[in-house]
Each structure stands twice: as C-alpha cells, then as structure tokens.
C-alpha cells in the first residue's frame, strides 16, 4: 500500500541520478490528482516534498489537510495536523524496511533493483523522456502500470492501480541547491 508512493518518490532520481551524485537534497512541490472509480470528481491534494539521499523522504500534504509522512530506511513516521506522531519502525514492520531499501536503491540510480519488480520501457532523450513500468508477478496484484515523464527532473508520474483507480502527481519548483533544513533533518531521523 505504501509502495506506489515510494515508487513516485523513487522515480524522481531517474532523471536526476546524475545530479544527485553532487546534490544530496532535492526540494519540490507536488500536485496530486486521484481519479477514483467510486468518486464522481477527481480528488486533489498538494504539498511539498524533500528528498534526501541516504536519509529518506519527507512528503508533506498541505491541502486539503496537513499531514506529513516521513519514509526512511529505518521506518515510517506520520505527523498529523495536531502534531500527533505515529512511528512505525522497520523492525516491527519488515515491509517498511523492504520499501525503504527499494527506495534507497532507486535514489542511487540502481535500476537493477527496479528491474526485479518491473518491465521497463523508455523513450525520448535526456531533455524530455518518458518511461513506462509494468509490474511483474508479485506486484501485479497491486499495480497495473506506472508512467513517468520528465527532463532534468521528473515532472509527472501516473499510477494505475489494479483496482482501476489512477493517481497523477505533477512536480514543480524542483531545486537541488537548498540544503536540508534542521526541522527536515529531525523528521528524517524519525524524531
């Protein structure tokens, strides 16, 4: 259930794996649109994200409500609008560690790890590219297809899940020059 989110985040570096070798931190804004079969209109959410190499991801939803998800190799931390924290470590939920590792290998541009789970098809050049991921046996129960578009950074990700729902995430204001803020660093340490 967390995997699609991680794939979205993990997909980012496909375009920026090279930059990441120098720039360890990427900040971006996102706009998420969900098309659910059960809903008559699409569902929108937006917020910001921080991607820190070796440390994890801070995914902060700002609208329609404030909720922050921190996903690192050590586990998962959720902070809600009231500041309440819920921590799940990889030790008591091994699947989290598994996700964290998939994520980690992707951040470092390790497409081999991704190939274990997906058939990968790519087209275009470095300035504008498109990649389609089709899940292999194990994940097919959860996902139908993942499409990514981008140039220097990933610009758009579309996820079709097995139930027929679709999630589109558009990224903007991607930048790799800002350092990690102290509060972001604290969150990534799951504190």
């Amino acid at each position, binding site marked *: 259930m967390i995997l699609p989110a991680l794939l979205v985040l993990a997909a980012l570096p496909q375009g920026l794996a090279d930059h990441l070798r120098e720039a360890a931190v990427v900040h971006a804004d996102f706009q998420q649109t969900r098309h659910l079969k*059960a809903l008559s209109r699409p569902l929108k959410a937006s917020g910001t994200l921080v991607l820190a190499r070796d440390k994890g991801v801070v995914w902060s939803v700002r609208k329609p409500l404030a909720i922050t998800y921190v996903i690192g190799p050590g586990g998962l931390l959720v902070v809600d609008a009231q500041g309440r924290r819920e921590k799940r470590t990889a030790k008591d939920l091994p699947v989290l560690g598994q996700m964290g590792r998939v994520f980690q290998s992707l951040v470092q541009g390790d497409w081999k790890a991704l190939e274990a789970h997906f058939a990968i098809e790519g087209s275009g050049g470095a300035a504008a590219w498109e990649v389609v991921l089709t899940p292999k046996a194990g994940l097919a129960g959860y996902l139908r297809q993942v499409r990514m578009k981008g140039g220097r950074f990933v610009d758009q990700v579309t996820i079709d899940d097995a139930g027929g*729902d679709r*999630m589109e*995430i558009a990224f903007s204001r991607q930048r790799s020059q800002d350092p990690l803020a102290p509060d972001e660093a604290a969150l990534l340490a799951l504190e």
Partner: protein
Amino acid sequence: MARRIWILALVLCALFTGLKAWRGGALETDLLAMLPPTERSPLPEKAIASLARAAGDRAVFLVGGPDAPGTREAALELAAGLRESGAFQGVLGRLPAMDPGAVPRFYGERRFRLPAPAAPLRDALEARLAVPMGSLPGLDPATDPVGHVQAFLGGLPLQTLRLANEDGLLLARDGDRVHVLVAATLPGSAYDPRVQDRAAAAVRGAEGRLRAAHPGLELLRTGAVFYGEEARTRAEGEATLITWASLGATVLLFVLVFGSARHLAVGLLCVGGGMAVAAAATLAAFGRMHLMTLVCGASMLGVAVDYPFLYFAHHVNAGPGWDARASLRALLPALLMGAATTMLGFATLGAAPFPGLRQMALFSVAGVAGSLATLALVAPSLLARPVPPRPALAGALGRALRAWRMPAWALGTLALLACAALPRLRVDDDVRTLVQSPGALRAQEERIREITGVGNQGRFLLVEGPDAGTILAREEALRARLAGLPGLEGVQAVSCFVPSPGAQARSLEDWRRRRTELEAALKEAGFRPEVVAAVGPGLEAAAGRPITVEDWMGTPLAGAFRHLWMPGEASLVLPQGPIPSARLRAAVQDLPGVRLVDKADSVSALLGRFRRLANAALAGALVLVGAMLAWRYGWKRGIRVLLPAVLGILAALAGCALLGLPLTLFSTIALVLVLGFGVDYTVFVAEASEPFGPAAMGTALAGFATLLSFGLLAFSRTPVLQGFGAALGVGVAAALLLAPLARKESA
C-alpha cells in the same frame, strides 16, 4: 526342575526384550515423558501438547549471508537437498503464491463489524484520500472510505514476526545481512529415534553440500528433533561407556580375585539374569523404557553383582570342604536380608505417582530379584566342585580388612567437614538446568529467536469459556489488561483477528448511529450516489454476517495461528517479549477463565514436589529398613547395622555441597540407593560367621564394583546423571568404609 524353569524364564525375558528392541520405539528419550502431567485438569496439558506439536514437529533453518542472490539460491538448494533426502514430510523453501486480496476482501466484506474511527468520519475520510498511498487489493476507497479496515489490518499481530515475504522467500534482515528461512516438517514425533536419525543424517548431508558450494554463509538450525537427537546420542554413548567400563572393572576384579573363568561366567550370568528380568518387566509394564531408566539400569550391574561376590568369596575361601548348596543355605539369610532391604528402598521410590520413578523402581526391584534368583537357582550347580584356595590375594585382602579401622580422628575430621559443608547445600528444581540442552544448539536457537522474533513457545495464557463468544470476550479483557505491561512486546491471540460477538455488535451499533454522518461525509467528498446509497443496505447485510472463527480459519492468515484455537474448549494467548511469568500471573489472576501456563515453571514446581516426596520416601525407607534390622538383630545392633548407611547419606549430601552440585530429585534418588547399598554391605558383614573372612572380602569387592560403575556417572555431561553419580559415589564410598561398624564383635 526349578533351575530349568528359571533358565527358560530368563531366555523368554531376553527374547521379549530383544523383540521389543528389534521392533524399535522401545526407548523413550523425551525427559518430560518421565514426568506425570503437570496440571490438575487435562485441558492445559492438551494445550501444551497442541503447542508442542505446532512447534516441535518442525525444524527451522536460517541461511544467512550478504544481501545477494547467492544467499537466496543457497537457501533454495538447502530446501531441495532436504526434500530429496526424504527424511522430512514437507520442506518449505518458497512460499506458495497467495492471493494478496484474500485477507483485505475478507475484512472488507465485514467492515461494519470492525471498530469505527474515533475521529469525525469526515476528517478520517479526508486523511485517507489525501495520502499518496494506493489501496490494498480488495480494499478500494468505496469499501474502506475512512481507512478503518486498513487500520485494523495494520494492528494484526503479524508484525511481531520479523520475517517478511520477499519474492516468495521468508526473509529476516539483520543489518545489511539477510537470513532466509527454510522450514521442514517431520514425518513423526521429534522424539522418535528413527525420525531423529534420518533427520540428522539428512541435515548433515545438506549442510555439508551447502558449505562446500557457498562457503562463508551462516547456517542456523533449531527444532526439538535436534535437541532430542543430541541428547539421545550423548546419553546412549554415555550409557554404553558406563556399561562397558563397569563391566570391564567387574571382570578385572573377578580375574584378580578369583582368577577363574567359571566365576566370571557365573557372575555375568547373574548380572545378565537380573538385567533380562528387569528389562522385560519394565517393557511389559510400561510399553517402553525411558533412557534414564536404562542409564541408571546400566549401573544396576553394580548392585546385581553384589550377591555373586559374596557367594564366590565363600567359595574360594572354603577349600576342599566346599558344599555349594549348604553354603548357599548358610548365606541365604544375608543374601535375602540384603536384597530385601535394597528392594524396600527402591519400592518406596515407586510409591510416588511419578512415572519415571516408578519405572526406575520396578526396574531395580526386578533386577535385584532376578539376579538373586539366578544366583540361588543356577549358581550352586555350576560351582559344585571346590576350588584350590588362593591364599596370596585372599590373605592379603583379609589382612588389609582386619587392619582396617576407621581412625577416630579421620572420622572426626570428616564429620566436621560434612557439618561445615552441609549449610552450603543448594536445592535446585529448575527443569531448565536439568534438561540442559547442548550449548551450540542453544546458541543457534537464541540467534534464530533474535533474528526472527519467534519467541518462547512453552508459555502461554489459557483462556477458557463455555462458547467461542465468551472465550473471545475473555481474550479481549485479557489483552486490555496486558496492554502496556513492561517487557511485553506483543500478544498473539485469535481475538486480534476475530473480535468477540459483543465487540462486533458494539461496532455495528456505532456504525448504525453514525450512518448519516458517514453518508454526509461520502457525499461531501464527491463519492458517487450509488456508493452513498449502498451504506444502508451494507449495514443491514452486516447484521447477518458476523465474523466467526470458522470463517476466519478459511483465510490464508489463519494457517500460522491455527494452533491457538482449541475448538469448543479454550484458546491460547501467546505473550511475546522478555516479561517475567510472575508479572504476567499477577496481572491476570483475577480475570475469569484465564490462567498462565508455563510448562517449565510447572515442571520445576512438580520436580520440587516430588523431591520432597522422595525425601519423605527416604525417611520412610530408613524407618522401615531400621525396623527390619531391629527385628533381625535387636535394637542396639540394628542401629549399628543401619548407621553406616545413614552416615553414607550424610556424606553424600556433604559431598554434593562441597562439589557445588545442587540437590535435585535425582540426587535424592541416589540417596535411596546409598541406603540400599549401605545396608547390603553391613548385612553381609553382620551375617558373617567370622568377622574378617570371606564376607568382608565379598563386601569389599561388591563395594569396589559399585564405586567403579557409579563413580563414572559423576563424569557424565548430563547434569542429572552427574549429580546422581556424585551423590552415589560419595555415599557408597563412605558407607563402605564405615561398614566394619556392623561387625559382630568389633572390639
């Protein structure tokens, strides 16, 4: 005539034993099988057995190495190797493909029977839809709009196992290393020697190939079958060694003292006769013989040989005037008296309702009787002719015995030492030190526990109730009580998966009350009208669709937890984490239908109870034997005949204290044996016609033989046997040295 019938009986006994041994399964290696049931009612015993089956008939392997394909391949090769060996009924390497939607669908269909979120449904719904997470198969937003089914699934006690399913392999991670789990089921009991031998051979083969093909991988294994196999081969090895050493020592004594093959043959015949009768009687009464009985039985050689020694000592000292039958008649009072007191001592042991003790008691009584009968019925005709006296050795021994006086100062020093040592005597009934498992295996099990999080399986909370609903409700009350106890990491219980009917009804009632709230929230979020319209019928359908244990048993989740449920009777709740049993017991003591069952604790308590019982038996035996001796020898002399045995018992206690060995049930048994031996010696001496003649010689020889066989037990690596051997060795030595106290006129 009587002789022929007896020989025929012995042959039949030997044939019966041989047949039993040949058909296999005659030897019991599970130490716990010696013990009576620990609980007063049969239910906890049944629960323990069901849990033991779930854990015991399985062997678990972990192949550890770097996170690389090689480690996974190695695990699959190990699984294939074990499968090919045919020693296991099933080997699980790769998990069968599972429908990932089966469990979410099961609960999704019954969602209105699961607790609603505490927060306003509108907020819960928004939070659920805003997260960048997909849905579990079968749990789309229309089925689980507010995320309460996902929350329920997240709370299932699956996380307590640190194993994750990765590509069909069960994997645990430990830093940057992975451990792949391979599980194998045994084709029979983990305590069946044939199952053990085949499993051990298969594992050795598969491990060897694995180490050759993938050097540097860590390989761990655990399972009752390995403990059983190791304990059995060790005990068998020790029993064999002790038997041969004791036999060798006895033969050596025979050769040195009697110097004739005939005496040796007759002596062995008496011992063999005793063993044949003992084994046949035990097998006939119990069906199978316990390993402990056999090991202690091997030491029975030492008792059985006492009677021939006495008789032969008279033979070699008689000279040309030897009359085999008359001599036997003359010795019979001593022989019968010695045997009767020994058997009395053993028989008091059997008075306790303790299968293991009864077996040992029967074995010993039958062995003593068989040996004595063989001597009385068979020996005289085989030793009819006189032998030339062997004055050199017999004379030397006689002189040594005549000169032997326990010096007063030595006696005093020993007494002081004993008094100083006795307060240091410890009592230890803990079954865990008793059934001490081999260190290497224990370390592997500890490591597996650390890596996988699979915990102590011998301890659980038993929840009873008249019906499934009551049991589930009591489990819920129990879980609420346990929540937050320090040291408790989690709880596995059926009620985690199947809420009690009461809880389900409360959830349903809650959802009914919040129906308009849910419909409004769905409408506001933009759910299609048909989703909103389905809430009402869904609630109605939920009323007739309870979550039942039977339905849950059909889901793929139930497999790993099936053993927690004993249909129509009770359920097991497994606490996990290093929480002391006392804390658990205190927390649950006032809950109806709940009790803590800790097999190790119960067995320890039981061992303690029987140790006290055996102490009482020892005291009773002392009184009975003392009365018997007083009846035969009068009060004053009776006490002198009994005294060496009593002092031997005190010496054994002091010896254990000095050696730092705790007093266990089994050392108490040794004390009963010391009484039997000690009285044997003094009776031989007391019945002797001349103070320093053949009787003294026979006694000394018998004592040496006993010391040799039991002294060896003290070097056993099995703690039980070690304590047993040490107590016996020290006790017998002391009783032997003090035996001259019983001389007719020792002035």
